[in-house]
Each structure stands twice: as structure tokens, then as C-alpha cells.
């Protein structure tokens, strides 16, 4: 190709824009990336477009990945145990001590009152699921709400929960007689939206309670709670 400098610059700019936008096919992408490794002008053009466009979605909402991702990263990098908490006992606290059973949690009336004020008005305001998660002092710490057919739980920290920067709060379902199942990590402040695999009414069917445990950053490395259980709450349904 014999292009004048201005033409070449315009072509390069268009190509770099398409690369950053992601519309180029695989071979063109690879070729352009390879050229950029040797040619600093091409590289700069790609980076400029990438950053220009990345700014468009830097504030977009995130989705908390499964805790197993962090565990795999740790294990691939051969990290020592300092980045995880000491392992749980073989049996786990949930099998020996069903602590949520006799737990004094906020009553259903409170749960409904809080839940409904958290949910936007809907056609069926009472088809809700509300869980008030409280510590041993019975003071609500987190409130989880969902619409019965919704695909996520809204988890709101009622107070500013202070946790160390290298720790995370992980939310668990406590099925009767079986090990807890992770729902993902929740924020210690503000509101977190925890995505569910199916409608909340289905996911939480036969789940009597939820619990929150303190885990290393990224979540439990074992797939079961490893840290202390900070809060528990009964799953209350308004339908």
C-alpha cells in the first residue's frame, strides 16, 4: 500500500478505533497487536483508543465473581497461607452447630417493614423475600431482600461494618442438613446486588437461613466457610 502520511494516519486511527471497540475479526486483531509490539506509533494509537473507550464504562456496575477464582489465582501463583485464613475444621461449624435455629433474629414484622421500604413499589408488593442478618447482639447488620421472581438479592449494610482490608464478607445459604452454599461476596458498606442462578423464590426454596462469614479477600478458598460467622438470619417470605 502506498499511502500518503495523512492517509496512513487516518487509516491507522480508524483501525485502532475498531480494534478498541472490538469489531475486528480474529486475524486482523492478532496482526494489528503484533504490529503494535514492534511499532510504537501503532501501539500508541491502539492505547489511546482503548483508554478513550474504556473511560465510557469505568463506572459500570461490577459482578462479584465466585470465590473459587481467587483461590485458583492464589494456588497458581503459589501464595503462602497468609493470603487466606486458617482452614476450617474438617466437619465445619454448620454441621456441628446449627446456630441459626434458635437464633434471636428480628421478627417477621420488622423484616417486612424494612424489606418493603427497600424495594421499589411493585404490582405485587408482598411477593418478597427478606432476610435480616444480625450478629449475636441481635442488632441487624445486613438486610437481604429479593422479589420472588427476581434474579438477584439486594444486600444492604445497615450500619458501617468495619472489616480489615484483606478480608471479605461472604454470604451463604444454609440448607437443612447440608453444607452451606456460597451466594458470593457482599460489601461491608452500601448496597450490593448479588446475582442468582434462578429466581429468588426458587434459589431460596428450602433454605431456612442465610449466614455471613468473614473470609480472606476474594472469598473462601475452600468453597465452605473458613472464617468466623458474623451474622445469620432467617429467610422470611411475604407470600
Amino acid at each position, binding site marked *: 500500500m502506498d499511502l500518503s502520511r495523512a492517509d496512513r494516519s487516518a487509516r491507522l486511527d480508524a483501525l485502532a478505533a475498531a480494534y478498541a471497540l472490538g469489531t475486528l475479526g480474529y486475524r486482523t486483531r492478532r496482526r494489528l497487536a503484533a504490529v503494535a509490539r514492534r511499532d510504537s506509533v501503532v501501539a500508541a494509537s491502539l492505547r489511546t483508543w482503548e483508554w478513550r473507550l474504556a473511560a465510557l464504562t469505568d463506572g459500570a456496575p461490577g459482578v462479584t465473581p465466585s470465590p473459587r477464582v481467587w483461590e485458583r489465582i492464589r494456588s497458581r501463583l503459589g501464595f503462602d497461607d497468609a493470603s487466606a485464613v486458617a482452614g476450617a475444621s474438617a466437619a465445619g461449624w454448620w454441621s456441628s452447630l446449627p446456630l441459626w435455629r434458635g437464633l434471636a433474629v428480628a421478627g417477621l414484622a420488622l423484616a417486612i417493614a424494612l424489606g418493603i421500604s427497600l424495594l421499589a413499589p411493585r404490582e405485587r408488593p408482598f411477593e418478597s423475600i427478606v432476610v435480616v442478618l444480625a450478629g449475636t447482639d441481635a442488632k441487624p447488620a445486613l438486610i437481604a431482600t429479593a422479589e420472588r421472581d427476581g*434474579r438477584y438479592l439486594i444486600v444492604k449494610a445497615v450500619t458501617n461494618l468495619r472489616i480489615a482490608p484483606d478480608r471479605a464478607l461472604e454470604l451463604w445459604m444454609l440448607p437443612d442438613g447440608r453444607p452451606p452454599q456460597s451466594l458470593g461476596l457482599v460489601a461491608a458498606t452500601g448496597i450490593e446486588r448479588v446475582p442468582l442462578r434462578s429466581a429468588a423464590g426458587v434459589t431460596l426454596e428450602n433454605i431456612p437461613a442465610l449466614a455471613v462469614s468473614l473470609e480472606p479477600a476474594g472469598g473462601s478458598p475452600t468453597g465452605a466457610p473458613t472464617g468466623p460467622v458474623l451474622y445469620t438470619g432467617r429467610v422470611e417470605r411475604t407470600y
Partner: protein
Amino acid sequence: MPTPAVDTDRSARLVDLLARTALSDQAAFAELYRLTAPHLYGVGLRILREPALAEDLLQEVFVNVWHHAGSYSAAKAKPQTWLSSIMRNRCLDQLRRRELDTVSMTRDGDEVEMELAAVGPTPEELLVSGADANSVRSCIEGLEGGQRQAIALAFVQGLSHAELADHLRQPLGTVKSWVRRGLERLKKCLDAAGFAV
């Protein structure tokens, strides 16, 4: 929507964590993961639409970041932008390579669509609400409808030109020109707004 002050604080924190990561500080790296993995996973999920695959690439990206954190230059890009670009490129490479291997595309199954609907807003809403500065947002809103929609779908969900044409029910040439003109306009608007890159 983060306020500029919070955003600056966060960026400064991430720059610090990346610097510590470059010095093999595991705790800093864990914190970096905690703060940025949800955003990157969201990027991957929207492009790949397969949680397992998005998880794999997220893992690759962070293993890479651990080894190459030293190559990050705060003078050139905000830390989150740098990380998002790495994630986006991995995801797009993966997506486009698979397209070479498969004749028919099955990424738009109903189940996946439902999953995406549950995860959040439409690509256009995301582009408008996700823009982290007023100037950027007004530039996106200044695009013509078709241009904005095409760019949002391509950028957020990784649609190719052919998929865009299919999705928007427009001839390929029209879609290509929407994208090209939209990008030109976006660039002019961003540059005029003094959006530094």
C-alpha cells in the same frame, strides 16, 4: 455514580496497590483483586456471556497482572482503565477466535439473555450511566440513535459488524458507517471536552 473525589481516591489507592504488587506484596495484590475483580468480571461476562469462561479469563488476567504489574504506568492511564483494557482484549481475542472455529453463533440463547437481563441494564444504558465523567456522558448522548446503539452493543457486548447488522436489522454497510462515524464523532467530542488520554 462515583463522585470525582471518590474516584480520585480510588485511583490513587489502585496505583499504590499496583506498585506494591510489582514488589510481590501478596496482601496488596489480594486487595487489588477485591477492589477490581467485580468490574473486570462484569466486563468479561457481558462480552463472553459464559460465567465459566469469564472466570477463566479473569484468572488469567490477574495471574498476568501479578507478573507484569511493574509495566503499569500511572502517567499513561488510570489503573482501572489499564486493567479493563487487558480484560477486554483477552475476552475479545477469545471471542473472535471461537468465531473462526464455529460456523453458527449460539451466543444469543434465551437463557443467556435472561441471565444478562438479570445482571443489569442494556448496553446503551450502561454506556451512558457507566461513563465516569459528565463530559463523556454528554458525548455519548450526543451521538445519533443508530450510532450510539451500534457502538454500545459492540463495546459492551463484543458484537462484530456482522452480528450488529443482524441484531439491528440493518445492512452491513449501514452498520459499519454508523460505527465509523459514531467513533469519529465521539473522538472529536471527547477531545474537545479536554478528555485527556
